[in-house]
C-alpha cells in the first residue's frame, strides 16, 4: 500500500513510494538521505525537525510525507548556494550561535522564515519567532545575535539576491 509522493526538495524534484504513515522527517532523513534535519522529540515541541514547506516553517515530525506531495520543501542542506553560505549560517558561526549543533538546522530554518516575514525584527520579535525551537546549549543569547546578524546582512544585500550575490 505504498503511495507515490512527489516533492521538490531544495530545488530538485524527488519521487518516492512510501507508506502513508511515513513522517516527512523520515522521508527526508531515511529515504532521501538528508540527515541535516534532526529529530528531538515526539510531541512537536522542540523544533529540531523544522523545514520550510512552500516557504513556511513546519515541524516535519508532525506531518506525513504524503502531505508534502506536490509541494516544495527546503532543508538546511538547501541554505547554502554554490558553496556560498546563507547569511543565517554565517550569523550562527560568527556569533557563536551553536554549540552541539543538534538544534541548529531547525533553528536556522525557523529564523530564515522569520526574516522573510519580518526583515527587521526587534529582539522580542526574534525571541518570539524562535520560541518553538528548543536549544539546550546556548541560552539563546547568541542565537538572537546570529539572527540579528543575518537580518542586517540580508537587508544590505540587493533584493532578490536572497543574501547571496
Amino acid at each position, binding site marked *: 500500500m505504498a503511495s507515490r509522493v512527489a516533492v521538490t526538495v531544495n530545488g530538485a524534484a524527488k519521487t518516492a513510494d512510501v*507508506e502513508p*504513515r*511515513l513522517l516527512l522527517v*523520515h522521508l527526508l*532523513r*531515511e529515504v532521501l538521505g*538528508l*540527515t*541535516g*534535519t*534532526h*529529530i*528531538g*522529540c*515526539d*510531541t512537536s*515541541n*522542540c523544533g*529540531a525537525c523544522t523545514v520550510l514547506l512552500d516557504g513556511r516553517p513546519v515541524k516535519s515530525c508532525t506531518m506525513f510525507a504524503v502531505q508534502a506531495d506536490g509541494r516544495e520543501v527546503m*532543508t*538546511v*542542506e538547501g*541554505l*547554502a548556494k554554490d558553496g556560498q*553560505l546563507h547569511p543565517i*549560517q554565517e550569523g*550562527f*558561526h*560568527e556569533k*557563536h550561535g*551553536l*554549540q*552541539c*549543533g*543538534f*538544534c*541548529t*538546522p531547525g533553528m*536556522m530554518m525557523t529564523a530564515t522564515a522569520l526574516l522573510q516575514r519580518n526583515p527587521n525584527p526587534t*529582539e522580542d520579535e*526574534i*525571541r*518570539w519567532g*524562535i*520560541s*518553538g*525551537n*528548543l*536549544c*539546550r*546549549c*546556548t*541560552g*539563546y*543569547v*547568541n*542565537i*538572537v545575535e546570529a539572527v540579528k546578524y543575518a537580518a542586517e546582512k540580508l537587508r544590505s544585500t540587493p533584493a532578490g539576491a536572497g543574501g547571496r550575490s
Partner: protein
Amino acid sequence: MASVAHGMGHSVKRKEDARFIRGQGHYIDDIKLPGMLYLDIVRSPYAHAKIKAIHAEKALAIPGVLAVVTGKDLEKYGLAWMPTLMSDKQMVLPIDTVLYQSQEVAAVLATERYLAADGVAAVEVEYEPLPVVVDPKKALQPNAPVLRQDREQKNNHIWHWEVGDKAKTEKAFREAEVKVSQDIYIPRIHVASIETCGCIAQWNPVESHLTLYMTTQAPHAIRTVVALVAGHLGLAEHKIRVISPDIGGGFGGKVPVYPGYVVAVAASVLTGAPVKWIEDRMENIQADSFARDYHITAEVAAKKDGTVTALRAKTIADHGAFDAAANPSKFPAGLFSICTGSYDFKSAFAEVDGVYTNKPPGGIAYRCSFRVTEASYMIERMADILAHDLGMDPAEFRMKNFIRPEAFPYTSPLGWTYDSGNYQAALKKAMERIGYAALRKEQAEKRKRGELMGIGISSFTEIVGAGPSHTFDILGLKMFDSAEIRVHPTGKVVARFGTKSQGQGHETTYAQIIAHELGIPEDDIAVEEGDTDTAPYGLGTYASRSTPVAGAAGAMAARKIRDKARKIAAHLLEASESDLEWERGKFFVKGSPNRAKTIQEIAFAAYTNHPQGLEAGLEAVSYYDPPNLTFPFGSYICVVDLDKGTGVVKVRRFVAVDDCGNIINPMIVEGQIHGGLTMGLAPALYEEITYDDDGNIRGGSFMDYLLPTAMETPRWELDKTVTPSPHHPLGAKGVGESATVGAPAAIANAVVDALWHLGVRHIDIPITPWKVWKALRDRGVTE
C-alpha cells in the same frame, strides 16, 4: 591570508561549526549500515509489578519482526543484570519484576524502524501490580515493601555516607548564639539534551570484533566496561572499538550505560547484523538517568554579628530502583562535601542516606559536577535565610563570611583544599555591574507601594576537574586524562584526546592550547576524539573535567614536543640547547634572533634530518594526573519582579561574574556560561519530574517537562574576574557547569527576598506561579 597561531585568550571562531551549519554533522541516527536492524523497547506501564507472562506471538507474526528479547533470554547469557558504577547492579531486562514505570521489559528486533515499533505495540505483557513506594522517607519505614528482593539486605536503605567532625560541629551548635534550620527539597529533573541516546552495535562474527557507535561522553570507559561485562561471550578489549560520533548535547545524560545499549550489543552478537537503537524523547525523559532528588535538612550556626561557625546537613537521596549514579567510586554522594561553599566555616558535618524507590535510576546527570548544585544551592539558600533573620544585607553577610583571598590554598572543614579564589572581588564586581545599592532603594520604594521585587545573590564555589588518582576512580580506573600530539613533516598536527566534546568546542579550544604552546596555527591542527582505536585512553568529558584534565594533558604533551624540538633545533643551528630561546613558534640563538628555526622547519627535520642519537619523529603523549581539583567560583545577582495576581516570576536582570581562571577562548566560555545559566534558570522556575502515588510519571514528555524557550530566558549579563589555578599548567579551571551550579540559588533567593517581609522563608524550586500565588493568598496579599 596566512594562518596565525592565536593561542590562549582569543575568541577563535569554532572549527566544528563548518559541518554543523551545513547540516553535515555526523550524529548517531545519521549513521546507516548495510543490513542494519532496528531495536525498539517494550516498557512497563506500572511502577512496580510482577511480570506473569510475555506473549510475543502477535509481534512475531508481523512480517519484518525478527525477535522479541526478554530478560529470560538474556539470563541464559548472563546479561539480564549489569553492574552499575556504584557497586550496585541494574536490570538490563527484568526476569520477573519491574521496579519503575517505563522500565525496559522486552526488546523487539525488526528490519525497519516502524516495524520494530509495530512489534512493541503487539507484545502483550501480563502484569500483577505490587505496592508502590515513591516517597524515600516512607521507603525507609520498617513496614515499607522491600523493593530490591535480589539483595540480601531486606530494606530499602542503600548506604550511609558522612563527612566532617560531628562532635566539633555539635559543640558549635550547642554554643551558637544564632541558629537557622530549613528543609530544602531539590527536585528530580532531567537533562533532556536535544539529541536523545542511541547506538549501533556491529558485531563481526568472523573477526569476533565489535564496533559500537554510541552516544557516549566516555568512550574508553565504555570499551572497558563492555569487555568486563561481556568478556565471557568472547568480547575482548582489543576487539572492541567504541566510536562516539557528534553528540547532540550530553550534560551527563550520556555517561551511564542504559539497557538499550546492552540489548543492542547482544542482538548484534546473536544475529551477526548491525543493530540500531535510538530512544524517543519520552523514553529519554522517563527512563534515562535523572538528576538530584535530594531531601535536605540544613542548619547553620552563627554569632550574633553574623559570623558563621558551623554547618550541618542531613540528606535523604532518592536513587530510584538501582544506585546507578555515575559518581567517582569513592563518592556515593558525589562532591556534596563542597557544601561549606565560599564561607569560612570552622566546623561542618554532612550525612547522606541513599534510598531505593520505584523510580528510574540515576542521580547526577544535569550539567553538574557530582552533586555540586545540591551543595551550592543549599548553602546559598541558608546564607540568605540567616542574613534575613539577622536583618543583614545578604551581600554584607557574604562579604563578612567569605574565605579571605590571602587564605588560599584553603582547606575546608570537610577536607577539600581550594586552589585559589577571590570571592570578595567577584561579588563587588557583580554589585557594581548591576547597581546593587540603587536596586535596594528601588525595592524599598516599591515595597511601600505594595509591589513585589526581589534581589538574589549566589556566591558559589565549584569543584571540578576530577580528579587526582589518589582519590578519584571509576570502577578502579583512575581519573587521569590524555592527549597525543603528532606533528607531521610539514608542520601540520593531528592531536587526539581521551575526552569527547558534546558541544563544548574541543576541536577549537584544544587546538588553541597546542597553538599556544607550539606556535603552530590552529588552522593547522586537527583535533580528534571519540574513537577508542585512535585516541589515547581517557575517562571522558563530564563534570567540567576536559580543560582541567585533558587540556592540561594537551599542554604537557606539547611541552614534551617542545623539549624534543629544542634538541633538533640545536642540531640544526649548531648551537647548544642551553643557548636557545623559545619564542612562540621558533627557537633562536640567544643574542642572535636571526639564527632561528621555526617549529615547522624543526618538524621537517624531525623526519628528514634528525640528529644522531635522537629518535626520528615529533610526537608525544601525556597522561595527566591532576595534583588537585580546580575551584572555579563566581557571584551572581538576580532581580525579579513578581506579579501579585498570577504569581508569575519575571527575571528582570541577571548579572553573572564568573572566575574560571585563565581563559582559553572567551567566546566559548561566554557561550558555556549562557547555556549553564539557562540550565540553572530551568530547575529554578520550570523543570521538575514528579510521580503520583502509583508511581506514574508527571513531566514525562516535552508537553509538560518545560525546557526554557527564548521567551523565558533573560538576556544574561556576563562579567569576569581572573584568578588562575596555581596547579594547572595553563592556570585554567573549567567552566562548563559553574553557571548551572550557581544560578538556581540566585533566582530562588531573589523570589524569597521579594516575599520575606510577608513572612515567607523558603519556597522549594521550581518556583512555579502557583507556589508564589499560594504564598501570597495564604498571607492575604492576593485573592
